[in-house]
C-alpha cells in the first residue's frame, strides 16, 4: 500500500461526490481543450485558404472592403462592377506582374435529386492568367481557351456532389447547354465548389458586357504590396483589399471572438476550482477525526497534506482525462458549435488535435488539482491531532 492507493480508496468512499467533482473538471477541460485545438487549427486553415487564392491584392468596386472580401471568398455577388478601363489603369501600375479580370456571378439551379433550388457560383476568367496565378491547378479533361464557347470547368467537390463528369452537360440553369470539358483536381479550398467559364461567356450569359467584379493582382515583389495598393487606391471606383489586410482583419475578429470564449472558459474554470476547493474542505472537515487517528498512529502533518493533495490531483487528472477524451470524441460537434460563433470560418477541419495540446490539457488539470488542493491540504496538515480527535474542542 502507498499514498496513492490510500488516496484512491478514500475517494472511492465518497463515490457520488467524487464523480460529480470529476465531471465538473471534465466539462471545463473539454471546453478548454476544444478551444485550444480550435485555435491552432483555425490559423492553419485560414492561412491555407488565403494561400490558395494565389492573389496578393484584390481590386473590387468601392464599398465595404471586408464585406466584399468575405463575399468573394465565399462566392457571393457584389452588386457593383468595375470596367475594362479600371483594368487598364490597374495593369499600368509599376510592379504588378499580372492583373486579371474576373466576373463572379451566382445562379440558382434546381437540384436534380432533391428538387431544391441550390445557389451556384460561377467565375468568368481568363484561363491563362488564372493558371499563372494558380499554377497548382490540374485538370481532368482539358482547360478551355478564352474564346471557347459553351465550355465549362468545375471544381472536384462540386463535380462529386452533382455527379458531373467530363463531357456531361449541366441539366438546368443559365448554363444549360454548356459542356463540362474539364474537372479541376481537388485544391482543398473554395475552388473545389465553383464553376469556371471564359470571361466573355460569363459576361454574355449574365448580360454584363464589359463588366467585372474583381481584378486579381499578383505583384512582382511582395514587399511592394503596400505601395502598389496605394497606387491602385488612386483609381476612382476601386477599392483595394490586400490579402494581408483580409487575413489581419479576420484574425482580429476571430481573436476577439476567441478572447470572449476564453473569458467564459476562464470563469468556468474558476467556478469549478472553487467547487473543488469547497468539496475538499468539506471532506477534510468530515474527516478531522480520521486525520487525528492517522496522526496518532504516526502520520505527520505533511503526510496528511500529501494525501489530501494526492486526492485532489486524482480528481482533476481524472477530470482532465475524461474531458480530453470527450473533446476528441466530440470534436466535430464542438467545431460546428464554435464555427457558428466565429466571424469567418474556414471550410476545412478547424479542430486539430496535437499531442502537445493533449499533454497541455493533462498538465493543466494536474496543476489545477495542485492549486485547488493546496489550501485544504494545508488546513488538514495543521490540525492538531488532539483537536482532530476531539472533533473541534476549543
Amino acid at each position, binding site marked *: *500500500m502507498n499514498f496513492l492507493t490510500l488516496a484512491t480508496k478514500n475517494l472511492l468512499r465518497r463515490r457520488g461526490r467524487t464523480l460529480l467533482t470529476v465531471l465538473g473538471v471534465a466539462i471545463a477541460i473539454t471546453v478548454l481543450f476544444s478551444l485550444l485545438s480550435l485555435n491552432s487549427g483555425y490559423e492553419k486553415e485560414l492561412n491555407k485558404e488565403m494561400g490558395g487564392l494565389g492573389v496578393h491584392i484584390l481590386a473590387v468596386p468601392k464599398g465595404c472592403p471586408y464585406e466584399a472580401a468575405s463575399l468573394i471568398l465565399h462566392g457571393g455577388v457584389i452588386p457593383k462592377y468595375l470596367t475594362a478601363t479600371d483594368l487598364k489603369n490597374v495593369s499600368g501600375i509599376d510592379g504588378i506582374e499580372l492583373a486579371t479580370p474576373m466576373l463572379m456571378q451566382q445562379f440558382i439551379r434546381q437540384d436534380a435529386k432533391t428538387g431544391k433550388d441550390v445557389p451556384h457560383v460561377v467565375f468568368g476568367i481568363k484561363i491563362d492568367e488564372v493558371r499563372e496565378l494558380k499554377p497548382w491547378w490540374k485538370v481532368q479533361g482539358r482547360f478551355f481557351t478564352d474564346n471557347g464557347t459553351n465550355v465549362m470547368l468545375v471544381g472536384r467537390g462540386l463535380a462529386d456532389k452533382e455527379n458531373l463528369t467530363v463531357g456531361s452537360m449541366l441539366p438546368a440553369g443559365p448554363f444549360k447547354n454548356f459542356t463540362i470539358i474539364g474537372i479541376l483536381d481537388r485544391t482543398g479550398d473554395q475552388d473545389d465548389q465553383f464553376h469556371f467559364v471564359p470571361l466573355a461567356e460569363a459576361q454574355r450569359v449574365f448580360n454584363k458586357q464589359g463588366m467585372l467584379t474583381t481584378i486579381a493582382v499578383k505583384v512582382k515583389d511582395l514587399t511592394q504590396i503596400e505601395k502598389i495598393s496605394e497606387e491602385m487606391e488612386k483609381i476612382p471606383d476601386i477599392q483595394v483589399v490586400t490579402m494581408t489586410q483580409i487575413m489581419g482583419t479576420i484574425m482580429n475578429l476571430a481573436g476577439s471572438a476567441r478572447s470572449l470564449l476564453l473569458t467564459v472558459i476562464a470563469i468556468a474554470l474558476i467556478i469549478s476550482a472553487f467547487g473543488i476547493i469547497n468539496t475538499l474542505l468539506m471532506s477534510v472537515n468530515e474527516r478531522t477525526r480520521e486525520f487525528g487517528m492517522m496522526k496518532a498512529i504516526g*502520520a505527520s502533518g505533511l503526510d496528511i497534506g500529501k494525501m489530501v493533495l494526492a486526492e485532489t490531483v486524482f480528481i482533476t487528472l481524472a477530470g482532465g482525462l475524461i474531458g480530453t477524451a470527450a473533446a476528441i470524441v466530440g470534436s466535430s460537434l464542438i467545431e460546428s458549435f464554435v464555427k457558428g460563433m466565429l466571424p469567418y470560418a474556414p471550410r476545412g477541419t478547424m479542430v486539430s488535435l496535437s499531442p502537445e495540446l493533449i499533454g497541455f490539457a493533462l498538465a493543466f488539470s494536474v496543476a489545477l488539482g495542485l492549486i485547488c488542493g493546496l489550501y485544504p491540504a494545508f488546513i488538514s496538515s495543521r490540525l492538531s491531532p488532539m483537536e482532530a480527535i476531539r472533533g473541534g474542542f476549543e
Partner: protein
Amino acid sequence: MSGIIEARNLVKTYRRGREEIHALKNVDFGVDEGEFVSIIGPSGSGKTALLNVLGCLDTPSSGSLRLNGIETCGLKERELVKVRRDNIGFVFQQFYLMPTLTARENIELPLLFSRKDCNKNRIDEVLQMVGLADRGDHLPGQLSGGEMQRVAIGRALINDPKIILADEPTGNLDSATSQMIFELFRELNRKGLTLVIVTHNLELARQAQKMYTLRDGQIVGCEDLECVVGVEVRKMSDANS
C-alpha cells in the same frame, strides 16, 4: 520514580470561550517498563486529557514528560511525531478504522507513515497476535465490534511500540467482548509491553497491575492491585459513579 513514562507537575488548561478549564492540575505520574496500569475516574476528571498528553497528542500547558528517556516538552510537532511513532501505540474507543481498507491494510497503515517496509510476515504475526489470523481480508464493516478493536490493537502494535495507550478501548463493546479484549491486553503485557488504559469499567480496571483514580484533574488514588488482590476497596466504587 524512574520508568518508561515520567510525568511531573503536568498542567493542562483549555480555554472554552471565556471559561478556563483545568483538565490537569499538577499531575505526577509514572509507569515502569512492562507495567499494566489502568486509570479510572468520572467523566470530565481529565482521564483522556492525561492520556493525550502522555501520548504526545497534546502538549501540556506546563510540566515535564519523559517518554522512554526523552524529554518531550518543548519538542516541535515534527519531533513529537517521531516520538509517537517509535514509542506509542494508540487504541481508541471508536476504533477509527478506515472503512475502505481491509483489516490487514488497516494494520499496515502506520507502516506507510513510518516509511517502514511492509513485511507480510510481520502483519501475519500481528494478525495472529490479536487473534484475527483468518480475518485479514475482511473490511471493517464485515467485522464485529470486538474484532474491529482487535484490528485497532493490531494497528497500534505494528510499529513495535514500547507503550500502548488505550482510551476507553471497551467503551463500545459488550462485557464478554470487553473481557476478551482485556485478556488480549494482559497477554501483550506478559510479552513485555507497557500498557496504560483509561476506562470507566472498574471491574476491568482492576485486572491491571496498578489502578490510578483521577478526579478533577488530580490523581486522588493509586492502588497496587497485585498486592491487594481480593481486597475490596470501597472508595473506588463511588469514583466510578
